[in-house]
């Protein structure tokens, strides 16, 4: 029998449905794999009982002849940014350590309703701020991948680094991620898996610890385009509890998957050809063009002239929102409280937040507070919003000439943990290709394309029109079929 943990969402769902194995067998196998992979530090807490209980419910439903959900029998990892009822939810921050919500995020609830089970809460960059998973209070996540000829611990990307590591290591069939400025796509690219950030508003933000509200968007991370389509279908949908949620029907993305791109135009943005991009990445991009052409698409050059301003604008808008969103962690109602003897309210705030937040979080709160301050607001925040509008307009104009845009996901492959910490700006640059689609709220996906000379995965990014997740998934499928990406990390943990 195939090892169950090697299977993805579709195979597990189908196998459980047709009786090839039980959901309990699946959950048990994954629970064991999770327990065996502590060295990756992918999980902050594990919840084997949750996975088993969900599996038993599915098995019982199947035995009773009841219809099974879209994710029935599939154990997944849940990024620890999603509030889970009765299970500690920390955003990988000390300030929320021990916080156990009495509510369930809309997205996680939808997944449980679809029959998925939870293996545990996945590690991440603290408050989703980071691109290497080195800002977690609960320690770095280590990628299952190794650079050829080196034993250095590699970064799984971030902020959804626990998710990418777990899925790549086959200790979860799939995982939730959230993407504010690349936090699904970049870790997916670093670990050789797929990840899609849908159109802003597709997935409810209710119950997701907020980083930057106008950018945050949940999405699936899995090992195939099909698996992403299935899981996104279970996660998406209008939620009256989120005012920015899209009130439109959720298409059946899985059913409409097609890698036949005849009649489609794929745009190649010339401004993405940036200095500092690895040659292997550029070569991979060229290969991607060839694959999509082979799938029937016409390749056209497009221009996104404001691309170089997107990253600076992002690093104003996102910290500005974060500085306000994170004000609620004040030691008054939940989470950490540091109340030195005999001090007043302001001192309690200061002590609590000094002890509770990590350096990167503090850095972004400071930046955000600064750019919103009287006298600086117009020069920074207002200006950044204008840039954001221009970036969105760039895409709108480009989509008059093409149906989907192909670009690299990242300028580099994964790097060793600790190698990029000298200057935060170097790290921020890793999201240079991911951020524009976030600012424009567009659906964007990373699919694994190839392995570089160091044996590390490289991803290609597809960006679509608003609401056109299908176009993105279809182009992703065309690449997947031609890339034949079979590489997987050698088990060392």
């Amino acid at each position: 029998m195939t090892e169950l943990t090697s299977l993805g969402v579709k195979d597990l769902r189908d196998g459980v449905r047709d009786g090839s194995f039980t959901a309990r067998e699946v959950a048990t196998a994954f629970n064991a794999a999770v327990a065996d992979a502590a060295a990756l530090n992918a999980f902050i807490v594990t919840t084997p009982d949750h996975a088993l209980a969900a599996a038993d419910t599915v098995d019982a439903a199947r035995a009773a002849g009841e219809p099974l959900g879209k994710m029935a029998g599939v154990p997944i990892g849940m990024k620890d940014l999603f509030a889970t009822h009765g299970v500690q939810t920390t955003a990988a921050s000390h300030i929320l350590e021990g916080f156990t919500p009495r509510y369930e995020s809309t997205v996680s609830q939808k997944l449980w309703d679809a029959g998925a089970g939870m293996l545990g809460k996945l590690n991440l960059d603290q408050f989703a701020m980071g691109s290497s998973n080195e800002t977690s209070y609960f320690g770095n996540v280590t990628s299952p991948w190794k650079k050829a000829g080196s034993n250095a611990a590699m970064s799984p990307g971030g902020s959804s680094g626990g998710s990418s590591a777990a899925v790549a290591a086959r200790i979860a069939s799939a995982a939730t991620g959230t993407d504010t400025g690349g936090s699904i796509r970049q870790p997916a690219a670093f670990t050789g898996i797929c990840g899609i950030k849908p159109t802003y508003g597709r997935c409810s933000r209710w119950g997701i610890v907020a980083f930057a509200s106008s950018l945050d968007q949940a999405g699936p991370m899995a090992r195939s385009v099909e698996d992403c389509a299935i899981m996104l279908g279970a996660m998406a949908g209008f939620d009256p509890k989120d005012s920015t949620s899209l009130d439109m029907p959720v298409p059946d993305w899985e059913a409409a998957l097609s890698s036949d791109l005849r009649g489609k135009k794929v745009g190649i943005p010339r401004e993405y050809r940036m200095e500092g991009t690895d040659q292997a990445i550029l070569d991979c991009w060229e290969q991607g063009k060839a694959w999509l052409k082979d799938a029937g698409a016409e390749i056209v050059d497009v221009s996104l002239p404001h691309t170089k301003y997107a990253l600076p604008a992002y690093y104003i808008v996102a910290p500005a929102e974060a500085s306000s969103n994170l004000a609620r962690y004040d030691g008054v109602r939940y989470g950490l409280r540091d109340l030195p003897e005999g001090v007043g309210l302001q001192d309690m705030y200061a002590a609590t937040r000094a002890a509770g937040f990590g350096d990167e979080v503090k850095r972004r709160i400071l930046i955000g507070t600064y750019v919103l301050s009287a006298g600086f607001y117009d020069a920074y925040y207002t200006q950044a919003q204008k840039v954001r509008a221009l970036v969105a307009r760039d895409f709108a104009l480009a989509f008059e000439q093409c149906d989907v845009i192909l670009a690299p996901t990242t300028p580099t492959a994964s790097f060793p943990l600790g190698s990029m910490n000298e200057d935060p700006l170097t790290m921020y640059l890793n999201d240079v290709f991911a951020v524009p689609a976030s600012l424009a709220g567009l659906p964007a996906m990373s699919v694994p394309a190839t392995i570089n000379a160091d044996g590390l995965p490289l991803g290609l990014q597809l960006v679509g029109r608003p609401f056109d997740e299908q176009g993105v998934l279809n182009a992703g499928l065309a690449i997947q079929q031609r890339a034949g990406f079979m590489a997987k990390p050698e088990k060392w943990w």
Partner: protein
Amino acid sequence: MSNYRIQGATGEWEVVIGLEVHAQVTSQSKLFSGAATAFGAEPNSQVSLVDAAMPGMLPVPNAECIRQAVRTGMAIEAQINAWSRFDRKNYFYADLPQGYQISQLYHPIVGEGSLLIEADEKAGIPEDKVIGIERIHVEQDAGKLMHDQHPTMSYVDLNRSGVALMEIVSKPDMRSPAEAGAYLRKLRAILRYVGSCDGNMEEGSMRADVNVSVRKAGEPFGTRTETKNVNSVRFVMQAIEHEAMRQVDVLESGGTIVQETRLFDPGTGTTRTMRSKEDAHDYRYFPDPDLLPLVLEEDFLAECRASLPELPDAKRKRYVEVLGLTPYNARELTAEVETFARFETLLAETATVTGKDEAKVATQVANWSLSVAPGVMKALSDDADPANATAAAQASILAMADKGEISGGQAKEIFEIVLKTGRDPNEIADTEGLKQVSDTDAIEAAVDAIIAANADKVEQYRGGKEALFGFFVGQTMKAMQGKANPAVVNQLLKDKLG
């Protein structure tokens, strides 16, 4: 022009006043959460996950709160902004769980409007005056700190956290405490007519931030101070008076006014510094990214407009022009929702019972409502059960009076008995003998007897001493034990005395 001036050592000073009124929106649930808003509930019993700012919680606008703000804006004939937006006002305080208040700085839902305060000589307002209103925006209220529950710690009650407020910002158009008082009362009346705020200042449903500055006539505006959270009309007037005097004293002794936030002490009627401009927060306002811009559809606006009741100014005008009431009565009757509601119910009932047009009985009903009935109730005080003062009972009394069946004095007597017992007025009139005799035969007999018994006076009267007419009326009424219809008595006497 207000003639209110402060007499300083260096001459007369004019006072310039602007008010920011915070009015709690009448709604079942809060501005961005489903939690209840009732006053006086157990601490922290009306708090949702959103109000407590739990991680991942999101605000969703409450349509009813928006509707009430729009209706209020329409009631002051203001610009309604079909596109508005919520902003975050960021600051740390224990009563503010989110660490920011959701408000509207840049694009308020209601723009410029105005409100009329009426001339009131006695109060020092010589003529009608229009007070400009700058804007109305909606925002969240904060929670409440309780400092008396523990020796070293403060407790927080989040019941009010997230309750919807309208901030109604006037222009600096008022020039005296009296004008400010009149503005507040008028605004309160409009809010209560519209039903968008209960106007209850004691429970904190309405409170005012008072901006005051002083200047010599003809000079530009002086530096203003803002006295926060004053919660009664009287206190607002006191705060203005004190603050204006204080500013004149400071200026005349060579000082300058510091732009600052002050607190009013109701005990002493004075204000004191709370924080100066230097300590002012930098609120770092920016558009709330959890909320989309608020776009009001044409249908929604039409519904808001259609749902507006007749407003105080229009009602007052109608009372004078259509119902024929005196301007004084019209103003008194329209000042409060309860007053006009009782009046209009009684007017309708009386018109029905008498079969007459409302305009024909309006003056009678107005006098009854404003002076007769309150007088009787006041005199009875504890003996009266106000529940007995039904519109039906009062209309019956008014109808009997209208038909001449009872006199004014009898009407009061009957009403007294109604208030004490709840008995039917017609039955009271019959059984208690509280009816005028309009029976011409009986009165004629009495008149004849009196004429016969006073031949000398009849002679004098006919000789030109007309003042004696009152004597004959008095004698007749006495003979009739006061129950004769005075009109019938008068007519008969005139006929017979020639």
